[in-house]
């Protein structure tokens, strides 16, 4: 089943295949990309599952994430410590959630987590404001930003609490025609 590789044990690769949407070859390729980010930090041999984490400043230099205005939030969402330091498990998990075969509900859940800046399980107006600023790179005035945020909450909020819970978000996204094709990182 392919050439002999010493990066992972067979058991580890099977576990990865079950837990993610990647095949064996892709996982090995991902390990290569992970190692490229910090060759002195990441060992070639992962058979004993070393606990190595790459800092977020290196991860956001990847070409897939470099131009994304939400790159910091993406990396923080998938990190265990919440600061953006990704172990290889988190790295694979991140790209697995964004890949083509990942289902809509999974992407919706992660999208909600990414846009929820203060991590209170709701997208409130402050979260929206920060999302908008990242999207428009500060080209709108604060009043304009506030207006857009109000309109957005008004459109999507179904239960009238002036912030978006997960169900509001899911409902809104399910009607959007290009969510799946946009929310996808190819690696």
């Amino acid at each position: 089943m392919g050439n002999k590789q010493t990066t992972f044990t067979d058991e580890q690769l099977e576990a990865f295949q079950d837990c993610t949407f990647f095949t064996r070859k892709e996982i090995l390729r991902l390990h290569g990309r992970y190692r490229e980010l910090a060759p002195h930090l990441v060992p070639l041999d992962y058979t004993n599952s070393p606990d190595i984490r790459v800092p977020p400043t290196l991860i956001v230099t990847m070409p897939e994430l470099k131009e994304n205005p939400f790159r910091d939030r993406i990396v923080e969402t998938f990190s265990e410590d919440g600061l953006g330091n990704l172990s290889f498990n988190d790295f694979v998990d991140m790209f697995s959630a964004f890949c083509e075969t990942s289902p809509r509900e999974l992407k919706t859940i992660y999208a909600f987590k990414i846009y929820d800046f203060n991590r209170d399980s709701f997208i409130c107006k402050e979260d929206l404001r920060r999302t908008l600023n990242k999207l428009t790179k500060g080209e709108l005035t604060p009043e304009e930003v506030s207006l857009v945020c109000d309109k957005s909450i008004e459109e999507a909020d179904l239960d009238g609490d002036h912030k978006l819970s997960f169900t509001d978000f899911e409902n809104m996204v399910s009607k959007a025609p290009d969510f799946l094709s946009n929310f996808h990182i190819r690696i």
Partner: protein
Amino acid sequence: MENKTVNFMRLLSEDSTHSTVSSDSCEYYQTEIFDLLPSIQASRPEQSRKPSEAYQDGPVPGEESIHGHLSSGPRDKAPTQPLRNMVICIQGKRSVRDRRKMQISDIGFWVSWRRSQSITMKRVWEQMGGALSGLLPWQHTLHAIEGRYGFGVKAYFVLLRYLVNLNLLHCALIFGFIVGPTIFYGRSKSSEPLKFGGNDSVLDFFLGSGYLDRSPVFYCFYTPGSLNMQCLNTPLLYLAGILTILFLTLILVVRRTTVGYKHTWMLGKQYSMNVSYKIFCGWDFTIQDPAAATLKHSFIRNDLKLFLEEQSFSLREAQRTLGQRVRLYLLRFFLNLLVLSLLGGAFYLIYFATNKSQDQGIPGERQWLVILVLQYLPPITISFVNLLLPHIFRKISSFEDYSFTMQVNATLVRSIFLKLASLGIYLFFIFKHLKDQSQCLENLFGREMYKLCIFNFLTAFCNAFFLNYPRKLLQEKYPSSLLAQLWGKQCFLVPFNVLDLVYIQTVSWVGVFYCPLLPLIGVVTLTATFYIQKFSVLRCCVAEQRMFRGSSSSVLFHFMLLLGLLMAVATLGFNLYQPREPACNHRFSCGPFGNGQNVFNVTGVCVDSLPSPAQSTLSYLNSSAFALPLILAEIIILTSYVSRGRANQKAIERLKDMLVMSSSDKRFLVKQHTTLLRRQRNPCRVRPAAIEENQRLPPES
């Protein structure tokens, strides 16, 4: 449904916003019953519906410690959910997997190969789709233009490309019906040969006389040749070709107009006004190129600015007092009167110029330059009027206090009326003058249309290179000079450029009967215009700060095209029905309908040769006894469509309300179920909190 807004407050209780009975988070997708919901099961195609080992006990302490903030209290769901779809990190999935001891743990070579194949196939399809859409000419240019200047400017270039394709289709039809038979079957023996000699000069290319007069460009070239059957001869083919062109164009333009109308005005409201889509689903995560990222940022910014513009206008409009409103309407009335008077003045100017140009004087008396200018005087006047007045209309509409989109559309409507009416008046005066001529009438008429086309193209060329480019250089080199400040920065004015396109296309349609190669000239000039305008937009213009809703304008563009087509058809019909004076063409056979023949003779001969049932059918279709039932049937069909549409609209509204209500019901029930379940599980932990909360906050139902 009578009440449009559903009152959601009656479903609101504390459970909606936070759980009062359990300290665990009540995330919807982490509840026990979530996976058992039929809607979730239906959306999972690959499942092993094996009997589940009930993992209904609470969270395993070992798992909780691993996950930290990511998932508070992971629920080990029934084994019907695939591992990959769980929202916990890989360590957690590993331990879940170990605990489940799944039978399908070994994914095997075959399944993984199949999956990678399906991914590769999907990518190949995407690439092919991308390549095919890249084959559409100028796709990259259009994309870049849309990013920098917005949708309105792109709509202009899209229309330009559409017209190029349309003209190519015309060329193909003309070659098949008109030029082809003449090449294969020759012309009549008495036609003049096609040689460059005598009084011909290069000026002929601009005037359409002399050499060009005898060339295939104009009507008189296509004399009937050796193809002389009753129902298949050159004149009939010529007529059939022109009629096919007009009919096909009518179908295409009507279809495009109605499709655009459906997309933008009926469905567009949902998506284009929806700000939350733009914010949450607007960014394309696959972008890796910095230039593409900048483009996408400007897309999103433009959309948001459009929304803000419309909001601020509707706010202002709602705040108008009665006195302001009355004054505004009075102002609009006077401005419309001003517009009408300007139009009247323009039409008189054109009449004057036409009269002047038809006054030939003694040939040879004047310089060639003067002759050229006099011949071109009507097109010059028309172009001057069409250049000046739309800008005045634009200024006028800015005083009328409409929303920006409405201003653009109002200017558009006025300017199109100006252009088409001026063309119509010009044609009318030509007809009157040409009646007195003794030459080939059709060629004279074709010549006028030819001159209009050529002159328009030259104007566009000079405008771009001698007006816009120096203006841009002036802005760059001497930005503080007086001239630069007076002139100002220029933006690409979409409405006016679109009017030019529609105008030229109308001229082309009016003239195609008399100048069959006009579509070919049209293809060449339109392609050249594309590159000229691309240069003008990308190098000389800045992006307009105010956005207008280009989609409604593009529907108007197509509608104006339709108007132009109808005008062309009306002109052609009027011309063909004119009785021809026999004295005119006794000298030589001019074109396919020379020798005392006209359209009716030729078609009459053909109809007589048909079998008698066909003849009687045709005569019945021609009569008025057929027209009345036809009109009645059309009215009935239209009424049924309209009423069906209205009923569908009402049904859509009712369904939308039902959807919102049932999702609220579902959420409520899920939360109730979860809290009841947890209350059962942890009675001592939960109840004091519940009692306390219930005492402090009475439910708000």
